[in-house]
């Protein structure tokens, strides 16, 4: 554990922040501008992971393992969420024969 923390600390904190901002932005753009639902789901995962990365980095720098515990939580929740999300997409594919997000406009009801 200590080795990993020190390994992480080899790289300056700013770099982690920049990387995760970049990843988050890419993910966000993907969510906003892609129409394929699977791609959107993947972009969401990307955003999760950017946050995870940040959490890990800060946790290591602060020597506080709570952050890394959170990462595990998030990964588990994300896995569960992917399962739900993918099954929605499968249902969508079966019902409307498409995974285009713009066809999912009945949420208002």
């Amino acid at each position, binding site marked *: 554990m200590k080795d990993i923390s020190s390994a992480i600390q080899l790289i300056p904190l700013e770099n982690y922040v920049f990387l995760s901002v970049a990843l988050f932005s890419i993910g966000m753009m993907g*969510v*906003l501008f892609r129409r394929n639902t699977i791609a959107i789901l993947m972009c969401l995962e990307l955003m999760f992971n950017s946050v995870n990365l940040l959490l890990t980095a800060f946790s290591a720098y602060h020597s506080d393992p709570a952050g890394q515990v959170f990462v595990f939580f998030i990964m588990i929740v994300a896995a569960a969420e992917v399962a739900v999300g993918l099954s929605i997409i499968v249902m969508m594919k079966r019902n409307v024969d498409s995974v285009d*997000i*713009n066809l999912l*406009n*009945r*949420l*208002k009801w």
Partner: protein
Amino acid sequence: MVALISSIAWLVPAFPLLGFLITGLAKNRLKNNQAGIIASTLVSFSFITALFLFFSLRSSGQDSVTVTLFNWISAGDLNIPFAFLIDHLSITMMLIVTGVGALIHIYSIGYMHDDERVSSFFAQMNLFTFSMLLLVMGANYLILFIGWEGVGFCSYLLIGFWFKNPAFNYAARKAFVMNRIGDLGFILGIILVFFTFKSVSFTEIFSQAGALQAGAPMITLITILLLVGAVGKSAQIPLYTWLPDAMAGPTPVSALIHAATMVTAGIYMIARSSILYNLAPITLNIMIGLGLATAIFAAVIGLRQNDIKKVLAYSTVSQLGYMFLALGLGAYSSAVFHLTTHAFFKALLFLGAGSIIHAMGGEQDIRKMGGLRKKMPITYLTFLAATLAISGIPPFSGFFSKDLILTKAFENNPLLYILALGGALITCFYMFRLLYLVFFGSQRLSSAHPHESPRVMTIPLIILSVLSVFGGFLNIPELFGGKSDLGEFLHSAITSKVTEELSSSTEIGLIISSLALLGLIILMAYRTYVKRAVLPAADSESLSLFGKVVANKFYIDEVYTLLLEKPFGFLSDFFFNTIEKAVLDPAVDGIGTATSRLGNLVRKLQAGNMSFYLFAMVGGILLFIIFILIV
């Protein structure tokens, strides 16, 4: 004696109340004349009790006795006992109300015996008598006000007694509403009296009033407000138009309510408040003006009326004007004296008119009558007595009372005397016009078969005519060797203004000149209506402009309709259709509509487009971040 008075005084109003309850509750069980007999008997009992009270009071040596029954309202320092004040003024009024009332009740047995709702009639008449007795017996303004409103309500009931006719119902409502206008002034006056004197009871107020300065604004305001009430009830300008319309009621009602008793309530109230009025010279002057104007104005209208009851109604308004004049001159006991004699002769005139109408089968137009002198001798003689009395021919009662007022007017200002005398001459003319047209000449309506009325009707006529003839002897002035008995009797209850006495030679001169003029007028009327047998023009015939205006009562009713009734209806429509429906309601509904409009607008954003949602979400977060960074 005082204890005796206290213990039986309540019986006087209780008898008519009992009569009201019996005839009112058992009205479907009473047959034929039973209701009338019960009602008349109870009012007569009431009269006997009042007489008894009168003698007890005289022998007790006290001026007044206050009889408290129970505490009506007692809230904070507002203390209003349900109490009666038995003093010389109220006992006089009680005797008039119950005495004349009993006679009219008896008369009504004959007059109303064909009516299907005769029990209701007597119930209402008894209720009226009860209210009127409360009015005159009340020991404070509030009890007086109970009676005051009560008689107004009974008058409403009785004017609209034949409720099938919408015009009668309208007349009843008009009477009530006009009375209520006066009553508002009256009640405000009472309230101010209470705030000024911390009491509404007569004895307490009047004992405090001496300390007040004459002409103080508060006292002027109070007296004017009380006067407004009196003007409404006693049918003075500008609230007189209900009284002629009130003739829609059965004739005994007109005699009892709209001639002898109720309409004189205003006179009684002001005479009762004489101490306050003495302190308000402005109000007294207003009363002189109102009284004189009403006396002459109504008399002029009376000249051209062709309905026998309308003539008498305007004559009542005119005579009430004289009483107001007397009140304004500060001669309160003269006003009460005229009230008394007027009660006798005007009740007699109305009952006589009822007898005539009865005989003519319901016809009220004097142009269609005539020659009744032979067919109805008793009615004729009694009517003649009353006519002579109202015209002021000595030694009939009206002479004494009217002469007293005229003399007082002369003491104040000769001009007042001339105007008042003018009114008296007009009165004399139209009364003799009425007499001649009805009883002289030949019968003009062939279909009627006039006959003398039954004895139950003629006996009250005879009694009243005796009173009309000799009523004046109650108060023979010193000029004729009398002692002004009634005036002296009332002295303890009424504080009249002291004026300079005229020398007896002036007084005799005035009387002789006025008598000469009266004789001339009677002759003139005789020449016109008996010798030349002139008939008043029919409604269709064209008259001179002035004649037309007078025949149409100066169009006052029309003016009131145009200026008051119409705008009121218009205002009501305006409030409801414009303010309520076009402003307030839409304003409230508008808030609801605006909310749902806004909802419609925002709804479009929620189209269900997922990418837009996401975009909006991210945009929102970004805005937040920017906001935080900037601030």
